């Protein structure tokens, strides 16, 4: 009962998403058909290709009541077979190169790839390490990069919505 009285007193805490957007970089233009199909319901599969887990903590924030990505029809799914979008973090390490490619192959078309964090684009502090293969787009085609180390949840959300071309109007 205490649980439910707390639920009642807290109410809805989800914050509306404003439109910032410098942190999001469109790498490739998404086809209109894909946008139309995936516009309202997207399953997201998160792939940690070798990040420091900083990005993961921010991504976890997306499911919190504050950011609540479900309101946009997005949800994390358990298998790439169910997914429409891969959310890739970190520089791609040698060990994760094949798994990342396999995950990409396992995802049914049409699909989108959002690379999260500076590492995914530039390998960040791991640049030049012998254990790193390269940025995410060296392994699989990327649609959107989200900058930041780590990026804020709202930036990641904006990145995802940019890939779907569904950003709220300015």
């Amino acid at each position, binding site marked *: 009962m205490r649980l439910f009285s707390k639920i009642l007193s807290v109410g809805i805490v989800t914050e509306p998403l404003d439109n910032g957007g410098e942190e999001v970089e469109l790498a490739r233009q998404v086809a209109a058909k894909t946008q139309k199909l995936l516009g309202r319901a997207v399953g997201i599969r998160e792939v940690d290709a070798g990040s420091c887990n900083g990005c993961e903590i921010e991504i976890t924030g997306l499911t919190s009541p504050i950011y609540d990505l479900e309101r946009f029809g997005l949800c994390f799914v358990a298998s*790439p077979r169910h997914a429409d979008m891969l959310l890739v973090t970190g520089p791609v390490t040698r060990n994760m190169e094949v*798994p990342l490619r*396999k995950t990409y192959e*396992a995802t049914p*078309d049409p699909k989108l790839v959002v690379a999260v964090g500076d590492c995914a684009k530039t390998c960040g502090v791991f640049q030049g390490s012998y254990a790193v293969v390269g940025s995410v787009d060296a392994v699989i085609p990327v649609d959107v990069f989200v900058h930041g180390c780590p990026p804020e949840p709202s930036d990641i959300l904006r990145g995802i919505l940019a890939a779907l071309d569904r950003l709220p109007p300015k």
Partner: protein
Amino acid sequence: MTLMGTLVTGAIVCYLAGALAALLGNDRWGRILGAWGAASGAAISLSLGMVALASGSVFSAVFDFPSLTGFALRIDGLSAPFLILTGLVGAASSVYGAGYSAAYTGVYSLRKLGALFNLLLLTLTLQVMADNALTFLLLWEAMSLVAYLLVLTEHREPATVRAANWYLAITHVGFAALLAMFFLLSAGDLSTAFDTLRANAPVPTQRNAIFILALLGFSAKAGLIPLHVWLPMAHPVAPSHVSALLSGVVIKMGVYGFCRIVLDLMSGGPAWWGGLALALGVASALFGVLYALMEHDLKRLLAYHSVENIGIIFIGIGAGLMFQSYGLMSLAALGFVAALYHTINHACFKGLLFLGAGSVLHATHTRNMEEMGGLIKKMPRTALMFLIGAASISALPPLNGFASEWLIFQTLLGGSHIPEPAVALMIPIAVALLALSGGLAMACFVKAFGITFLAIARSPAAEKAHEAPLSMQAGMGILGLACIGLGLTPFFVVPVLGRALAGLDRLAWETTVFSLTLPLNTPATFGSMSSPLLAAGLLILLGLIPLALWVIGANRRTRVGDTWGCGRIAQTPRMQYTATAFAEPLRRVFAELYRPTKDLSIDFHPESKYFVQSIEYQSEIHPWFEKLLYQPLIGIFHRIADRVRWIQAGWLGLYLTYMLVGLIALLVLAWWTP
């Protein structure tokens, strides 16, 4: 001669000719001709049963052969269903055996196998016609011995000999009980016709003794708990087409005998008879399926399922007897009809499954499920047949297992009419346990089919598997069709069986209860089910769904890729779920019943125990209550045998002396008694 007389003679001639051909022919022709003899004989048995059923209760013929004094045969409504199942399974397994036994060429004697197979079918066919105790017992023993020799086919394997010995021992315990039972029943004269026995009822105390002895004797053959131990031993080691016959037909003779004596000759008894049969049935159903779940030997798994299904049949019989004792006649009839229906159904799907398992064994040379996998790609037709059998035995609609289990459930629901609340309360528990064993059977056959036929081959042998030859496919096809056919026609099967049973004059049968309309209605419109409509509906829906997908313009592209395994580099067969793992949750749930032994040994690295070199885990399940029951008995036998060993000196003179002493003793006895 009447039509049935001709058919009986024809069947006997066919079997004998088949046996002769097998004995005299060479390996190839003997095998083929023997199979032809058996198949045509079985076809005649089948038509004999059908003729008997079609002519209904009116027809009953007595065949007396003057050369065989005291030998009496008679076919009535109770024999007919068993003739039909003998014919069905016999025909299928002899066709199958023609191809299957070819693998024995040069290894074991094909002649003996072919001849004995024919003889077994002959004794089975005659068994259900026996019309006096002498005939019954003689055929019973002949059938048991022939079956024993057939189990011994692969006699160079020690496991086979052990299994055959167990079978022989238990079947003779049963035989002794039957002998005593018939002596009591016929007051010493074994050649009294069953008709006379039917008329004079023994006194109640004797009746109880007769019932107990009959239950003991017939449950040893049927494989009811606790006399089931020979089933999981003998069925796997016999050649697969023989296993099909053992499991499909031979154990059903126990059911036949029980019905013949308790229902027909004694016309039922007090309520506790039915209650005992019901309780044993429930126990067998549950324990059979529980042990089947833990089994990885495909044929042993099937054998344990025979224990389960015999249990289900006895649930029907027990309920029938109980209702009869309370005067609820139409419910009693329903119970027996359900039991008989399930008997035929079980013969079909268990025969089919054993034949399927035989094809797998033929292709992979192993019975161990952990070494199979992926066979559906190598042997698609066998897989399809096994799937039909698996779905039938799991009582999935609209196949035959469902029809009869549904009927048994409906019978049990009638338990609410039993006037004594204490007794009536047992019925829902039986319903629950029957439902549980049904659910577990489904789980078990998901395992049996899934691990054997699906996913990736787990061993090189499974990778090199091949489809069974045409004759074996044909054998499986016959039973597969029978499973579907019997499942779709309960509206026809049930009234026919009911009429046949009514011919015994032991169960009041309201002909209006089961009408020939499409849905199957039970007394007082308790529930209704129509499997043909159900099947049609499912088929229509199966067609409509792709159509609907097409209408909404669903994407039809399919890409073939790797199995998803969290991005791991390669998939090996060792990553799949095994049969053991599959059954693990249920093993944990029923740990109290299984009492598994665990043996974990870990080899640590000499430097540090944080590095493990190898882990070995062994866990075994021994049916503990079998040990509890049989170990003391075996101990006693050993002790007695030790005591009396001195009698056996292996010296001829001594044995002749024994004979002489015995003869004199007999003469003296004969002289003393008036």
